[in-house]
């Protein structure tokens, strides 16, 4: 008999050696006064940095990390959306991987656990990061607690004030949550002296977190975009492959939403590596049109310009996204590996607007009962379109998507969307 736990993989999957072309390396901008790659070395845990540049196809998951995955409820469920199939009257079979079932409500915890573990192993006692809407900060707060580490989270001031529930969760886990810009860093002091009511931004929070980590000898954790984060997230796709095998299902279409690309890459790349599936769809926001309007260029992953340039599909680091509800999809770029796969036509993309997303979310939650995160609802919209197409063509294909998070902390957003739609 196979136990649920056996479905949790012992290795992470790294797509770098399986890409069609060499992945362009990170680099410094012309006339740079300092080396950003050297900066990475100072702020990131050593093993995390090694994994960032590894070209091994499979990277062993330390037993203690695997135990932590099981402890937070991995494998997360792979559920069949039967009611949704019925509502859409589609011959397609629809499955979803429910990452919202983790304690922090999204996939973010998968890499936070790994990075916190490696930090602890290296004798680091304090972790620092930034957070916008709060998903990533929550994951770092919990992961730090699991390994007995302190954590400091720089939360963008507007979110700090508008999303007090997220702040409360982080504080319950034992994190120190700061409203960024703060007076803890030189950068923050400079900004608040110019404008005491500065609303903050993700770029500012990130700069503060990096400065704070460097000044105090703490380590900084990265939440998306970088290859190492996509590597850790591969636990999602690897589990799903095992779960589908147990159901005797062969997937045809794999779908995920894209913020920085870590939930998409984590879910879909293992399928690409195993040559399973025939169609891979990355879904972005119409309001943040990186796939349709972005260019494939070297750009900064962070708006502060502190990290090395990476080659990716990007709207430019200074792009100011509109205030859409899917905070996680407002990011200007997409992970380099995913960007290349899109450029090469191996991964297809879609973009949907907020109204379509809201309708899709409502269809899904009325069918399956789960309130999806607005970000994940982008994947749902693509699933619905694929399922409808299957109905027209009478194809019994198998559609699998990643429900990267639940939306129970996004209810105020849903509420204002309902008002707008009525």
């Amino acid at each position, binding site marked *: 008999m196979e136990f649920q736990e056996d479905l949790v993989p012992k290795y992470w999957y790294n797509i*770098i*050696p*399986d*890409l*069609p*072309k*060499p*992945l*362009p*390396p*990170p*680099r*410094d901008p*012309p006339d740079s006064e*300092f*080396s950003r*790659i*050297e900066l*990475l*070395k100072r702020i990131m845990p*050593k*093993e995390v*940095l*090694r994994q960032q*540049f*590894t*070209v*091994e196809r499979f990277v062993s998951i330390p037993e203690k990390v695997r135990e932590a995955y099981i402890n937070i409820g991995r494998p997360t469920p792979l559920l069949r959306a039967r009611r949704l199939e019925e509502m859409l009257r589609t011959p397609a079979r629809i499955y979803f991987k429910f990452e919202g079932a983790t304690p922090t409500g999204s996939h973010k915890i998968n890499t936070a656990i790994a990075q916190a573990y490696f930090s602890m192993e290296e004798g680091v006692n304090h972790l620092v990061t930034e957070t916008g809407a709060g998903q990533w900060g929550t994951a770092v707060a919990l992961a730090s607690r699991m390994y007995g580490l302190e954590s400091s989270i720089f939360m963008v001031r507007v979110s700090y004030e508008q999303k007090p529930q997220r702040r409360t969760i982080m504080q319950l886990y034992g994190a120190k949550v700061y409203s960024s810009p703060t007076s803890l860093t030189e950068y923050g002091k400079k900004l608040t002296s110019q404008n005491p009511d500065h609303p903050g931004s993700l770029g500012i929070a990130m700069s503060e977190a990096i400065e704070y980590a460097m000044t105090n000898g703490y380590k900084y954790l990265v939440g998306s975009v970088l290859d190492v984060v996509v590597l850790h997230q591969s636990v999602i796709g690897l589990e799903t492959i095992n779960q589908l095998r147990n159901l005797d299902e062969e997937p045809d279409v794999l779908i995920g939403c894209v913020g920085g690309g870590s939930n998409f890459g984590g879910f879909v790349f293992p399928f690409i590596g195993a040559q399973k599936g025939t169609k891979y769809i990355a879904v972005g926001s119409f309001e943040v049109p990186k796939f349709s309007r972005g260019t494939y260029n070297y750009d900064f992953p962070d708006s502060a310009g502190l990290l090395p340039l990476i080659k990716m599909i990007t709207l430019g680091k200074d792009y100011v996204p509109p205030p859409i509800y899917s905070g996680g999809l407002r990011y200007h770029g997409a992970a380099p590996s995913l960007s290349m796969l899109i450029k090469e036509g191996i991964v297809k993309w879609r973009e949907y607007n907020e109204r379509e997303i809201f309708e899709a979310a409502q269809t899904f939650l009325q069918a399956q009962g789960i309130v999806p995160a607005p970000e994940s609802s982008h994947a749902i919209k693509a699933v619905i379109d694929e399922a409808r197409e299957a109905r027209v063509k009478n194809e019994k294909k198998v559609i699998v998507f990643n429900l990267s998070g639940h939306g129970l902390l996004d209810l105020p957003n849903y509420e204002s969307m309902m008002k707008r739609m009525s």
Partner: protein
Amino acid sequence: MLVSYLTLGYPNREQFLTLLKGLVDAGSDVLEIGPPPKYAKYDGPVIRRSFKQVSSQGYDMWALLREARDAVSVPIVILTYLEEWIPTLEDFLIKLKDIGINGVLFPDLLIDFIDEYEEYVEAVRTHGLKSVIFTSPSVPDPLIQRASKLSDMFLYYGVRPTTGIAIPITVESLITRVRTLVENKLVVGFGLSDVEDMRRALKAGADGVAIGTAYIEEIERGGVKSAIALARKFRGVLDGS
């Protein structure tokens, strides 16, 4: 095989020529010379410092290259970014051949010109120059195999993402993997800067090493004599002592 890198004109014109001869006397089999580029896109901070110093002195690149060529008889390969020469590539290659340079190595060939790299290799060869190809761990296996067959003199394998920054990597496993793909001579560089790293690389199957950053750091610390002494030490490791 010991491949020694020098930044053209570093630390100054006279000492550059002393260094050049010294590195050959110390047992370098091939010299790589890098003129300061407009954009040192894949270079680390140490090499960049050397570029900055040379640029502030302002030499005639071609005159100095000619002097370098006349000073030593080992093969000289020019290490430079293709991107910079594309508008004048033909002229550039003719001039190199004319002064007796043996080959070129474009570190950005497989990164920024992946779709047309074979045409550039051909262009270099048509001008009577050797084309040494630069690969790295992120190059997919089939491409490493292909590039290895195409590369003249040896295949250059840079193990770290940027020169001279000791990003933690496992040198052995990287080289063991690439060794199985490469029939050509394999020269490993980009951040191999201590003797232990070098021993590991050779044990894992490298035929040679390329040294650059370590010399420049040594020059900063103790001048060119010190760098030449370091080359002797590396030669010793290669010869099994």
